[in-house]
């Protein structure tokens, strides 16, 4: 047996590697997506006041800090046992959408588009953001502007772009500054145009890569996410829905606070990332996907007109099936969510309720246990806290979106390796296709440290005796 190692995977958040095991005839037997770095935040939080959790958990990640902040605040709401003011809820919704906007823009325009617009076989020295600029400067620039719009909203609401302690148990700290409304509204036409332009681009990409796409994580699985009470796409509240790969709703209206009764977390000795699964189906049959592909699949409709029109086109991809099962369409779903976010942000900015001054419900600790859930850019995020009567954290469990896609990411890697790898002959194109399969999910690993220095891509071919047969760095 020979093992090929791709370490680390580039252009995703955090550090990971891929190993592909092939037999003496060069036939792929297995492939695994490993996460190398241990996340210690749950232990780090124990013993700290519950009130600090927003500031702490928002530092888990530089890409989606707002999602952790909002979900943490919702767990705090549950511990206080309060219903937060309407204004606070709407402001939290707006900042959640801004998080989607900036994170999805980074994923599509700058992490994945170099593959699509320059080609999987392009020189890796050019297949990056500078190469993208050389290819289509306006496209790259518009992606940056879209991401910046999301950041601007987060800064206006939260008073800073990252690690904002703005959302708290019971509501938010600061009301919306009415002087900023027109400024944020002024971005809407450009943001909408960019979203529509990107959607046109992805449709051309679907045609360009029509022979590749069927190999990108194309399998049936379960899909999980929040939906609104009326079945609409939801991102902040709602109940959990579980749909199978044939489009059947197999569980619905699950209270997110009871997630642990429905979902388990398995571990494997070769990865630090947990392997969540749907308990009634067992491990690993209970594999499910979360995030844009899941959300757009499981909702009955989207309550904004342009995004709903796109959702109908998206669903048409499935043909007779009701569920789009190909992971490549994460990108399409992601862009639909960008468009939805722009439409929804515009509606919220025009809603007089966001100007209210009643923004925080205050209470003491009323529950010793609280769960918060929201839809982070990459999928459903749970924060589960146990506290003392004084509000000191006794136990913390964070179920992150990327982990919930872990089984599906591994299956995707295996499918791609089996399709493209011929013996032990590595090429940039093969490696990048496998990495691109992972990037469909836009995984966010433990991107919590940033000491200067960057690991290069390191590929090793190793034989049964662990001898390095060949090596590739880039």
């Amino acid at each position, binding site marked *: 047996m020979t093992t090929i190692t791709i370490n680390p995977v*580039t*252009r*995703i*958040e955090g550090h990971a590697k891929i190993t592909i095991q092939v037999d003496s005839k060069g036939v792929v037997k297995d492939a695994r997506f490993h996460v190398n770095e241990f996340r*210690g*935040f749950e*232990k*780090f939080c124990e013993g700290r006041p519950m009130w600090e959790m927003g500031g*702490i958990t928002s*530092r888990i*990640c*530089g*890409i989606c*800090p707002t999602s952790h902040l909002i979900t943490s605040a919702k767990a705090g709401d549950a511990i206080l046992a309060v219903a937060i003011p309407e204004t606070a809820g709407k402001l939290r919704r707006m900042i959640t959408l801004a998080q989607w906007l900036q994170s999805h823009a*980074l994923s599509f325009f*700058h*992490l994945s588009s170099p593959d699509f617009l320059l080609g999987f076989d392009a020189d*890796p*020295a*050019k*297949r*990056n*953001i*500078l*190469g993208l*600029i*050389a290819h289509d*400067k306006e496209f*790259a*620039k518009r*992606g*940056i*502007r879209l*991401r*910046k719009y999301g*950041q601007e909203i987060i800064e206006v609401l939260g008073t*800073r*772009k*990252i*690690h904002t302690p703005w959302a708290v148990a019971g509501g938010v700290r600061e009301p919306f500054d009415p002087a900023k409304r027109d400024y944020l509204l002024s971005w809407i036409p450009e943001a909408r145009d960019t979203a529509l332009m990107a959607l046109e681009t992805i449709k051309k990409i679907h045609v360009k890569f029509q022979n590749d796409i069927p190999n990108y994580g194309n399998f049936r699985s379960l899909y999980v996410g929040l939906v609104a009470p009326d079945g609409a796409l939801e991102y902040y509240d709602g109940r959990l829905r579980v749909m199978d790969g044939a489009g059947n709703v197999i569980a619905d209206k699950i209270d997110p606070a009871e997630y642990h009764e429905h979902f388990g977390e398995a571990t494997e000795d070769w990865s630090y990332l947990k392997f969540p699964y749907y308990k009634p189906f067992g491990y690993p049959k209970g594999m499910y996907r979360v995030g844009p592909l899941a959300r757009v699949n499981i909702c009955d409709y989207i309550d904004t007109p342009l995004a709903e029109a796109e959702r109908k086109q998206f669903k048409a991809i499935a043909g007779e099936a009701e569920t789009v099962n190909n992971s490549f369409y994460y990108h399409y779903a992601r862009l639909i969510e960008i468009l939805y976010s722009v439409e929804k942000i515009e509606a919220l900015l025009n809603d007089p309720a966001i100007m209210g001054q009643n923004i925080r419900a205050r209470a003491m600790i009323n529950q010793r246990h609280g769960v918060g859930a929201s839809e982070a850019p990459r999928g459903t995020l749970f924060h589960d806290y146990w506290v003392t009567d004084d509000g000191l954290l006794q136990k913390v469990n964070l179920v992150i979106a990327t982990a919930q896609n872990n089984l599906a990411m591994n299956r995707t890697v295996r499918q791609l390796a089996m399709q493209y790898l011929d013996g032990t002959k590595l090429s940039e194109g093969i490696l990048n296709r496998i990495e691109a399969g992972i990037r469909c999910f836009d995984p966010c690993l433990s*991107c*919590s*440290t*940033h*000491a*200067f*220095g*960057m690991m290069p891509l390191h590929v090793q071919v190793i034989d049964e005796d662990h001898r390095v047969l060949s090596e590739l760095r880039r």
Partner: protein
Amino acid sequence: MKPALLIGLGNTLRGDDGVGIRVAERARTRFPELDVLSVHGLSPELAETVAHYDMLMIVDASMVTDGLRVTDVIPATSGEKIRSHAMSPAGILGLAATLYHRVPRRSVLIEVPAAECDFTDALSPRAAGQIDACLELVGSYLVRS
């Protein structure tokens, strides 16, 4: 063009990784004429921001230097130095030059020696002991600019 921007990089919950942020916090009060940003990592939209400055200082933790180390940053012209989720200082300048046709007249990366990047909000004596010297260095660049 605005005079000078300092960007502090890092995560204050990962020990010495946050020393860049600590320097930025101190610089904000000590040098009122200096614009200061604290960020978790360098992301593409910062290219537009830095393009408006005459002088750029980026302060980051480093596990590979024993003392304060200053390096002039030249805009990247090759994609090799740019990875979108954690862009390098040269990458940000390369983006600024390509997209906005402007870069600071001078850009420096100031690396502060780091010893531990574990889960703690405290700095090691090694990193903490360099903050004052780093601020002196920042001040000297402001005088020159």
